[in-house]
């Protein structure tokens, strides 16, 4: 098993400083849709200028470099203990190099660890053994502002008139977008999970955010829901930064899980416009980033 510490460091650098092309393209389209001279268009101009500058200077797109969330798919026989150690070393090194802000705060004492290493759950690392030969590592840096506006609903919800069906899901997700206003750094991307228990549901809502903005859900019902939600959310006209305008969300990604007969959870993870998501694939001696 190779030492991948340097490769992980590059994954963190790339994720923090270089916005994925599909997200940037989506922001550019959003910019074209706003009224010339509006606060919304001006906000998107600033956002796009910042994206280019961060890429050029290799500095963080956003100062809140968030919770690093790693999803690791590894072939049989790899040591997850070693991989975890290498990832943690890379995260501490990335903090030293100012690709990451020190973000791990002890909740009891209030002390910041200074190197982004907290208890074993910080940074978050999920492992899954797969059949293939490649090691695939997805990373999301999820900031606190947008994490704070995430929401979980239990259907039915009387206040919103939301029943236990996809129409009910639509209603509660719109409520979450309304409650977020501009506080999650709109225009955001919504990860939506339907079903599961409270824990697995939130987990799946984050997993959904690893999909590219321009892909289509393989489930036709969920694909329809994603499109409808994107259109409806944009009718709220909260707009970039909550200044009012055409684009409130860049996209919606939904996922369904089996549930207990008694439970029907809808979990919404709101990702800010700075949707920092990257993938690293180790294929033999080669390491590919996308």
């Amino acid at each position, binding site marked *: 098993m190779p030492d991948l510490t340097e490769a992980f460091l590059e994954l963190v650098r790339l994720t923090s400083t270089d916005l994925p092309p599909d997200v940037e393209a989506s922001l550019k389209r959003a910019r074209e849709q706003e009224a010339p001279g509006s606060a919304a268009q001006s906000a998107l101009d600033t956002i796009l200028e*910042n994206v280019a500058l961060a890429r050029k200077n290799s500095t*963080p797109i956003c100062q809140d470099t968030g919770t690093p969330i790693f999803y690791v798919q590894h072939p049989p026989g790899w040591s997850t203990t070693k991989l975890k150690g290498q990832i943690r070393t890379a995260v501490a090194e990335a903090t030293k190099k100012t690709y990451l802000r020190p973000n791990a705060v002890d909740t009891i004492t209030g002390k*910041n660890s200074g190197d982004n290493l907290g208890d074993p759950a910080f940074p978050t690392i999920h492992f899954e053994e797969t059949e293939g030969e490649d090691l695939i590592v997805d990373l999301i840096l999820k900031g606190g*502002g947008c994490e704070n506006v995430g929401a979980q609903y239990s259907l039915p919800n009387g206040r919103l008139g939301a029943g236990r069906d996809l129409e009910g899901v639509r209603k509660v997700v719109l409520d979450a977008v*309304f409650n977020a206003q501009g506080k999650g750094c709109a225009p955001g991307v919504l990860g939506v999970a339907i079903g599961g228990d409270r824990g697995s549901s939130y987990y799946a809502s984050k997993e959904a955010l690893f999909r590219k903005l321009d892909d289509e859900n393989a489930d036709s019902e969920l694909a329809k829901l994603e499109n409808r939600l994107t259109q409806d959310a944009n*009718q709220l006209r909260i707009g970039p930064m*909550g200044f009012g305008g055409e684009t409130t969300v860049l996209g919606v990604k939904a996922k369904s899980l089996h549930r207990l007969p008694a439970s029907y959870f809808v979990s919404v993870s709101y990702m800010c416009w700075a949707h920092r998501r990257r993938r690293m694939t180790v294929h033999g001696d080669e390491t590919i980033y996308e």
Partner: protein
Amino acid sequence: MQKITLPIKDDVIRALKVGDSVSLTGVMITGRDAVHKWMIDTFVKKSRKPAGDDAEVYEALKPILDGGAIYHCGPVVAGLDTGAYSFVAAGPTTSIREEPYQGDVMQHFNIKAVIGKGGMGPKTLEACSDVPGVYLHAIGGAASLIAQSVQQVLTVHKLDFGVPEAIWVIDVKDFPAVVTMDSHGGSVHVEVETQSKAQLDKLLAS
């Protein structure tokens, strides 16, 4: 784009209206969750006694905040090992968490400009009318760009709060922001919330 120099006089504040673009130049501080709680507990409500360097830091902050600005920001800072600090990334953090504290902090220190993102609520809006002051919205996530307007980090207080939560005293030039809450009761955030609520009700009924 209106250029504003810190400290700010009342007539300048009163002339600002929701929607105005401004650029700020001068010395300001960063302060977010831990700082606001510390200010309220130690100096406004006085529910805890000053300890350590609290009194000293308070005296150092007073002249900067009198007519000055507080920036809701937890920056990425280079030079932590040498003390030759510089800001690498410094966009705004979500301001609403300071809503329980902000109005009282503005009154106590005579703060004229609160800078952040996402807007604030009725208590802060009322303080904007009284002090008078404004809420300036910076572009969330535009951290590399905004860091370029920070000419120099003059000093840091309360670094034991952690890098994001410390009080960084910074000299800025042409710091860009938009007035989204003014001293006449105007708030973009109230407007957008009201119209989006009407839209939401329509969408829930459909």
